[in-house]
């Protein structure tokens, strides 16, 4: 049996598939959030050096990891859209952008909340924090460019090119910021080499998967809205049961 990989590359067939997939990600995500929160607040032990404050990490680390990962996923979809000229890829890219920006913002915010009690300051110009801030700018640039072009096809392609240029730039930015930082001061905190307690690891993993599934569910429902908006003049939309009612 051969699988037709391109079947779901059309918005028409993906619309239904996305609708069916959303509960499969949304419900596990909710369960994992509850489990992760419980483990994070009640099961995981108090850290020897950081006390209770370290628990912010359980939301901070997943959002930070995923925010960078989603930028690459977004750029990947954007590249697919440019190369194969598939409409759905571009829609996926623009559906991921707000979630990615949100995760970046959450990781910056929780980082500041954690930094105040631990370092005694809301913000330091640490390499990680600075590059995260720049990542937020890149997301906002993508969203702004897409929003300011009225014609959807041009918006998709222009934003896709920007996303690709941005993703090429991300490593350069990261290393430049890292070297810039070490020129001025040594890294204040080193995460490597600290062996994490096993419950903490499991909690972190649970929360990461919860965030990941949440993002997938949200992106799928957003892409459904984008499909509806873009294809509103087509026949198959008007034949949808939810449209007729």
């Amino acid at each position: 049996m051969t699988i037709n990989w391109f079947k779901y590359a059309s918005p028409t067939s993906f619309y239904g598939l996305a609708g069916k997939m959303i509960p499969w990600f949304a419900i596990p995500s909710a369960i994992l959030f509850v489990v992760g929160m419980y483990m994070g607040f009640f099961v995981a032990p108090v850290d020897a050096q950081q006390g209770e404050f370290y628990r912010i990490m359980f939301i901070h680390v997943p959002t930070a990891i995923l925010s960078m990962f989603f930028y690459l996923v977004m750029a990947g979809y954007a590249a697919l859209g440019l190369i194969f000229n598939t409409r759905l890829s571009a829609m996926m890219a623009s559906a991921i952008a707000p979630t990615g920006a949100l995760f970046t913002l959450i990781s910056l915010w929780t980082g500041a909340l954690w930094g105040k009690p631990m370092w005694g300051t809301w913000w330091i110009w640490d390499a990680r924090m600075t590059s995260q801030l720049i990542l937020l700018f890149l997301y906002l640039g993508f969203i702004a460019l897409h929003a300011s072009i009225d014609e959807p096809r041009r918006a998709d392609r222009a934003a896709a090119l920007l996303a690709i240029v941005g993703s090429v730039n991300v490593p350069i930015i990261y290393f430049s910021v890292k070297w810039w930082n070490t020129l001025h001061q040594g890294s204040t905190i080193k995460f490597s080499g600290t062996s994490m307690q096993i419950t903490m690891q499991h909690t972190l993993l649970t929360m990461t998967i919860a965030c990941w599934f949440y993002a997938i569910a949200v992106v799928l429902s957003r892409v459904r809205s984008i499909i509806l908006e873009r294809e509103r003049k087509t026949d198959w939309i008007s034949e949808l049961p939810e449209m007729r009612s």
Partner: protein
Amino acid sequence: MKKSGLLDLLLLVIRRDLVLAMRRRADVLTTLIFFVMVVSLFPMGVGPEMDMLRKMAAGVLWVAALLASMLSLGRLFSADYLDGTLEQMMLAPQSLSVLVLGKMVAHWMSSGLPLVLMAPVLGLQFDMSIKALGVLMVTLLLGTPVLSMIGAIGAALTLGLRGGGVLLSLLVLPLCIPVLIFGTGAVGAVTAGLSFAPHLSLLGAVLILAVVFTPWVTAQALRISME
């Protein structure tokens, strides 16, 4: 008829754009005056203590150069876009990338080069040492072309959009951060008595990457914007 090579084409575009820039000298001067003004605002903002100003000098000059180059980017393609020249350029049998490279070089010569030449005078106001001034000029010489080139991508993407200028800065400024860091880093290394060669090498590497890739990316962006 003599078949014109790519180099002839490049020189032709550069000469044409420079002539156009010289016909509208006010635009070139505005960028330069903006640069001088922004740099002069800093001592008024943070106070006239020379020790502090000396430390800030490279950063201030670089940030001002970055902002000044944003200012002139909007004009890079807009005039040609409005009078239809750009469309003819895209229809031309010659490579669009080479045409774009020519426009980038001309843009740098009319907006980046004046800043580089002006920088030492402003550096003296900040009491920079002669050696630091020299390094600052070299970093600006290597770095400002990159700003023009990365900026050209943004200018091509935002061609003909409302509110293009602000949007352009939003897109381009984050991408220019490495140039800023390496540029000021070299001057910082000189004042700290360290070797500034690594920073210059990195800046040179960024310049080479930009020369190779940005004309092609900008050409693609123009095709997207013009279709």
